[in-house]
């Protein structure tokens, strides 16, 4: 594995117990005492998400429930290039829109927990269905790496995925893996580390919507930016308000959303956004 250049000020041992998002994470039951970065694993059910999780964490994992919920959660830790990562396995969901318990947990973790990076695991044999979730996650945050898993199965079925073109189209790095054998996971982690460090700039694609919806979104985005200036996912928030998401409504009313942006300014400013070519994406 090639060593990645360290530009991240969050060096090992850096105490971040006071950062606001850390408090939020702790409320979600994540113990942060000895981790440098928190990475979340999202994906549809049956995509080999847990294989990715197991291969990355080995036996260093903890299984329990989400606080106050009857939804199981797995989290684990591993080291990569001298940094300690905490990996949180989000419930497998097909979407983030249906407001089932699983989806609420995933959505809340991605939005309010603000993990340093989100790996969206996708099944290479049913990419279309899996992109549905990836596109939704990318509306919330740009810190996304798409892990196109089950490449072996795809190969047997005569399916090839052009990862380079997919990365370009999506605006986030895509890495092909066979999690069962561990193939490609090193590349995956290298890309994740680069995204966290800001070495790879991600410019996630926005979903194209009918003109009628676009107009409504634009109007709301302007209003939202008045209340929460600098909110990176104002468009997604507008979308959720139009859909009528009670949790987001209340976050807006209580000022929780506005506080999310404060936190953003605390975070280290990414290196100058240069479109770094994505290695490891072959």
């Amino acid at each position: 594995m090639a060593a990645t250049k360290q530009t991240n000020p969050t060096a090992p041992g850096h105490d971040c117990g006071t950062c606001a998002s850390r408090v939020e994470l702790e409320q979600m039951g994540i113990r942060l005492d000895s981790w440098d970065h928190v990475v979340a694993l999202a994906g549809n059910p049956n995509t080999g998400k847990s294989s990715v999780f197991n291969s990355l964490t080995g036996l260093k994992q903890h299984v329990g429930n989400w606080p106050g919920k009857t939804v199981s959660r797995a989290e684990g830790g591993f080291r990569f290039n001298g940094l300690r990562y905490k990996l949180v396995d989000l419930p497998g969901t097909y979407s983030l829109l249906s407001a089932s318990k699983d989806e609420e947990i995933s959505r809340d973790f991605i939005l309010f927990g603000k993990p340093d990076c989100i790996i969206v695991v996708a099944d290479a044999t049913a990419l279309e269905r899996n992109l549905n979730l990836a596109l939704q996650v990318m509306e919330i945050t740009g810190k996304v790496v798409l892990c196109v898993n089950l490449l072996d199965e795809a190969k047997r079925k005569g399916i090839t995925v052009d990862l380079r073109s997919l990365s370009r189209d999506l605006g986030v790095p895509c890495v092909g893996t066979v999690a069962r054998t561990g193939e490609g996971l090193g590349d995956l982690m290298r890309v994740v580390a680069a995204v966290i460090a800001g070495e790879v700039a991600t410019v996630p694609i926005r979903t194209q919507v009918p003109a009628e919806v676009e107009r409504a979104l634009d109007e709301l985005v302007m209003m939202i930016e008045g209340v929460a200036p600098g909110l990176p996912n104002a468009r997604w928030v507008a979308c959720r308000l139009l859909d009528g998401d009670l949790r987001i409504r209340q976050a807006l009313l209580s000022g929780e959303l506005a506080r999310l942006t404060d936190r953003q300014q605390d975070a280290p400013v990414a290196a100058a956004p240069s479109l770094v070519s994505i290695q490891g994406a072959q």
Partner: protein
Amino acid sequence: MRFQEPPELPSHTPLPTGLAGAAGFPEVTVTQAPAEAILSRADALRRDFQTNFRDQMVESIYSQAMALAARSVRRDGNNRWDLDQRIDRIVTSPVWGLPIMAGMLAVVFWITIVGANVFSELLFDGLFLVESWGVSLFEWLGAPWWLTGFLWNGVYRGLAWVVSVMLPPMAIFFPMFTILEDLGYLPRVAFNLDWIFRRAGAHGKQSLTMAMGFGCNAAGVIATRIIDSPRERMIAILTNNFVPCNGRWPTLIMLATLFVAAEFPPAVASLAAAGTLLLVVLLGVLVTLVVSAVLTRTWLKGAASAFTLELPPYRRPSILRILYTSLMDRTLFVLYRAMWTAAPAGALIWVLANVRVGDESLATMFARMLQPLGRAIGLDGAVMLAYIIAIPANEIVVPTLMMVYAKSSMMMQEGGYEAIRVLLVDQNGWTMLTAVSLMLFSLLHNPCGTTILTIWKETGSLRWTLLGALMPLAIAFGVCFALASVARLLGAAG
């Protein structure tokens, strides 16, 4: 009459059941005028849309996903594709689907029962050897008899019994179950059986939670998390008890062997025993469906929700992962909880057997007091007492029963089927009717303490937990009472 109370505007009343999931939102404390303006603007915009906003949004995302996939995915043939479908056409086929499923279930049971027997005996011998060492050690140390008895013959023996009865079948059943799960076969079971469950107002996935219940009802209750609809999940939780868990298998196997198989020539005896077990299981499934249907029409009103279930491609299971999840998550988890309930039960049994009132032990006295209740349902007081003591863990029913019958001072090891037959039939007058009644009671009675605790944790409601505990008990008493009454009438007439 004039009413002076100004009728306050809509008050805060608790949300109706079924909505609990939606209610867990934090109170809104800070309100900002601009934020409210955004919300009311959003509401207004939503109302003005020509078509439903959600529909438009999902359509947009999917058409984008379709376009992206079209640009980067290339298909060359579709060789393996057809293999998946070919397997599916067989395992979900109108003709072969159900027989294949029943066959698989039978094989899983057979392996579990046969394999568990071997390991159970080994564990038994090992753990009871440790007990005798412990007793010797305490005697050598000069500990009083009651301390030795309480700790080793009470607490430890309860634990040892539960571990040796429960661990082997679970350690065999759960990995096999996980293999089927990992292979991707289980969703096909739900697909095959959904129609039947829908008729009872339940969900096809309930069949999977029931399959899990064969291993352990507590695990089955946790498995109901896969059911989305709260109503159908509740049905699955409340009825999971009607599939006999492996804590109840020993009782059922013993009765089937001692009473039913004994009526047949030795050549087909084991088949007859297996057939009896199958009948009991089918009866349990039937009761599950009937109770589900009744719940659907009473406390849990409503029609079945939509069944949309993915049938994922078949995948080669990874053995390490299976061992890990099935042993760590399921077996050890269940065993851990069971041990916490079995230890105090062991202590209680020892106390009952050793505290004497007059010239009889507490156990004998309670059994005498429970005699009329037991008689009414075709059983006797000793069985009732055994079931009360075994509430924490059903595995200890048989040993407790033996202890009460033999007036012994500790739970007994089974001394071979012949010895049990002599004890039950010759000394305590058991008949075929008693055996059938006990099998029914064992199948239908209340869930064990671990399961009740799990129901409480999963539902978060005392009311549903009580219903989940008391409804099966009422059904068990009702059915056994009816059977006993019919038998008595026939006996009187004949």
